[in-house]
């Protein structure tokens, strides 16, 4: 498809398990962003990639969170030893690059529920 694709759409897992969230950006978009949206909250920036490198990881809440991007395309956000406070919608967005006024294009998000 032409848009940003995220999988899975929903994920329910037990506390302590590891989860992997996937984002497939729009073809040709070099910039990719991960956000977290908790219930009733705005968007919390987690990390962004320019190509395969992540110049800004300042938003990652703890060392349990990591992300990678390969081939300048698909990105995975991994949460290890999940906690209940990790429950949220995780949104991915892409844009042509970071040095532009182009808006971000968002995926539908992954709703993560930690039991």
């Amino acid at each position, binding site marked *: 498809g032409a848009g940003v694709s995220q999988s899975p759409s929903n994920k329910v897992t037990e506390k302590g398990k590891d989860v992997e969230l996937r984002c497939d950006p729009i073809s040709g978009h070099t910039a990719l*962003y991960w956000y977290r949206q908790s219930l009733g*909250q*705005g*968007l919390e*920036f987690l990390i*962004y990639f320019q190509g395969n490198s992540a110049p*800004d990881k300042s938003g990652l809440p703890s060392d349990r969170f990591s992300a990678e991007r390969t081939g300048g395309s698909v990105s995975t956000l991994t949460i290890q030893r999940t906690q209940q406070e990790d429950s949220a*919608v995780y*949104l991915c*967005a892409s844009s042509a690059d*970071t*040095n*532009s*006024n182009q*808006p*971000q*294009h*968002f*995926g*539908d*998000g992954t*709703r993560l529920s930690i039991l």
Partner: protein
Amino acid sequence: AQTVTQSQPEMSVQEAETVTLSCTYDTSESDYYLFWYKQPPSRQMILVIRQEAYKQQNATENRFSVNFQKAAKSFSLKISDSQLGDAAMYFCAYRSGLHASGGSYIPTFGRGTSLIVHP
């Protein structure tokens, strides 16, 4: 650091009427962009409208228009002839411009305003 404030957690409007959502921001930069995004229950954030700070003319997109007051650092969204499909969360966002010195290109989002449209 820039901040974006949406002071209305929730707004209601009757179908076919007009509603204005408020957004204020704090910045020391002169070069920046402002955006309004819509997030329906499907969760996908959709760009509604954007404004370049250097442009004095208010942006419009069909039924959507903004009132950009640069000196007051205000960027409100007006929705005319409201439709049931306009019901959603609306987020205001700020992004440093290409020539902003030391600015972050990571957009800053407000906490959102939930718009309810009554038939």
